[in-house]
């Protein structure tokens, strides 16, 4: 037991001494994105209470282990908070909150994808991070436009939001299935 703790401490010390700046910044980015997402999504009553500490811990965990399932868990936690806030607390679906959540969740996800393949002690070329963030920015921009248009449309067609959600959701589900099928087809070759 003691030996294993010593080994872990030794390993942590090695990791800290060898770590380079860019992978650390990427991991910091994951933690910040997901923690902000938690603060935005959960009801104000929870955020101001002591309950926020474990929530923030779960949100920060993917920064330490970006290869694990912690990222999915943290994102689902954020979504759960959003559903709780808008259903039980009956908060208004504000545009800025949806925009911020979509952006932060995607940033957390894509930075975790980068951190998962980027060793903590790597000598990183600036191109890598610039390209990655550039693509993430483009995706965020497109989805922000979509969000603004869709929420505006939903406000105008108030009452028929359910139909729009159904249609968009079905289209998305079909798209996702096709994506998965195509991928499996390619990797199976």
């Amino acid at each position: 037991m003691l030996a294993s703790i010593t080994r872990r401490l030794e390993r942590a010390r090695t990791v800290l001494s060898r770590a380079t700046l860019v992978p650390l910044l990427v991991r910091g980015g994951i933690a910040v994105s997901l923690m902000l997402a938690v603060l935005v999504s959960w009801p104000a009553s929870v955020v101001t209470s002591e309950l926020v500490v474990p929530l923030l811990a779960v949100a920060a965990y993917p920064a330490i282990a970006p290869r694990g399932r912690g990222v999915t868990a943290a994102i689902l936690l954020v979504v759960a908070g959003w559903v709780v806030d808008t259903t039980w607390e009956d908060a208004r679906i504000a545009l800025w909150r949806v925009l911020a959540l979509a952006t932060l969740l995607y940033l957390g996800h894509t930075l975790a994808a980068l951190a998962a393949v980027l060793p903590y002690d790597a000598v990183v070329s600036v191109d890598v991070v610039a390209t990655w963030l550039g693509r993430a920015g483009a995706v965020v921009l497109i989805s922000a436009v979509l969000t603004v248009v869709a929420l505006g449309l939903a406000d105008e067609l108030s009452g028929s939001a359910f139909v729009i959600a159904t249609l968009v959701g079905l289209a998305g589900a079909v798209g996702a299935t096709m994506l998965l099928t195509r991928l499996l087809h390619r990797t199976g070759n």
Partner: protein
Amino acid sequence: MSGEPLLRAAVPPVEEGSAEDAWTGPAWVPTRALGRTVLLTGLLLVAGVALGRVDLVLLAAPFAIGGALALRRMPRSAPQVTIDADEEHLVEGGSVDGGLTVANPDVIRYDLVVVRTRTSPWLELEKADRPFAVTVPVDGWTGIDLPGDALRWGRHDVGPAAARVAACAGLLACRPVVTPARGVRVYPVTEPFAAVEAMPAAAGLVGNHRSRRPGEGGELAGVRPFAPGDRLRRIDWRVSLRTRDLHVAATLSDRDAEVLLLLDVLGEAGTSGGVKGTASVLDTTVRAAAAIAEHYLKRGDRVSLLEYGAAARRLRPATGRRQYLTVLEWLLDVRADVSDQAPTEHVFGAHHVSSDALVVVLTPLVDPRSADMLASLTQSGRYTVAVDTLPAGAAPPQRSPWTPLATRLWRIERDNVLGRLREHGVPVVTWAGAGSLDLVLRDVARLASAPRGR
């Protein structure tokens, strides 16, 4: 029975499909990020539909859009990694220019290529212990420079290098592509060495050493009366005028000699700290052998090398700059012999060593077999000089409180062996660079001038 002999092809037939099996395509595997993308997109869309919530669908939008953008073009081939290393003559302590090149033959850009390489501990390459993360454009390449220093002689490897690629925004990753190592030859630095003393026996037809036989040469042996057959230009006019009789200057002929460098590789002792640090037995052996060979080859002598160990590698005697380069190349493969197999007698028998050769034995005199070999060489009448290559502070690792005492006893015993060797007429000298061998060569030359035979 048709009566015809059954013939079959001497070459084994190519199995069907083996060519296809040999070419296994690049293995692109989905990462956990792809699984997460699909899961979150599906889950949020289904929840949006079930709860009738547009906002949940909009939360799924970046994941779906990001996934679709990233996967619109799929990678098909694996990256190509090449290792570049210096081909030129490198001397330990000199600088090495290593490098890695990652090429992208694919139709999409590689977002992230993580390249790792291993290098020999004796090549101090900058940041070579860290992975490098780079991007590689479509149909292009990215180079990584690894400048550094070579710390010790020998054949050192740069590599193997492995590259792992993440494409499509990290949704797909390639299995590591490994490139075999590339060898770098680092030649030993030769300590300045000069021996001014005569060779004990110069045997060839031409060369730089004055022999003990009269003949055409530069070294004056004396003046003697003119005899039929003497060249006119040899007449010493001053003596002839004084004595009123023709006298000629007699000279000693110039001969070359053979030098055999016998390298004792039965054991390694001491810690090698590279060119700037402490020298181990093999370091001293190789550097001294290179220096001695360089010196005698420059003087036009024939130099041969022999390993005293189970492998018994041998380099034939030859002369000139070409032989010097061969010697350096041969020295790169000197390794400590760790096998228990004894060096066979017929390889190291005195009959294999030319009777006129000067045998310089580079030995730490740790193994008793080395002392026996030296004694037998001397007994057979070879001109033998032993160079002690054991580092001054060499001692076994401390294993018990008795270790220092045991080491002291061993040192005393070794001194005893050295003394007995000297009694048998084997001069033993500690290697100290220039002029190391002068004193002992003088002794050996004096011994050689005495009548032989026992």
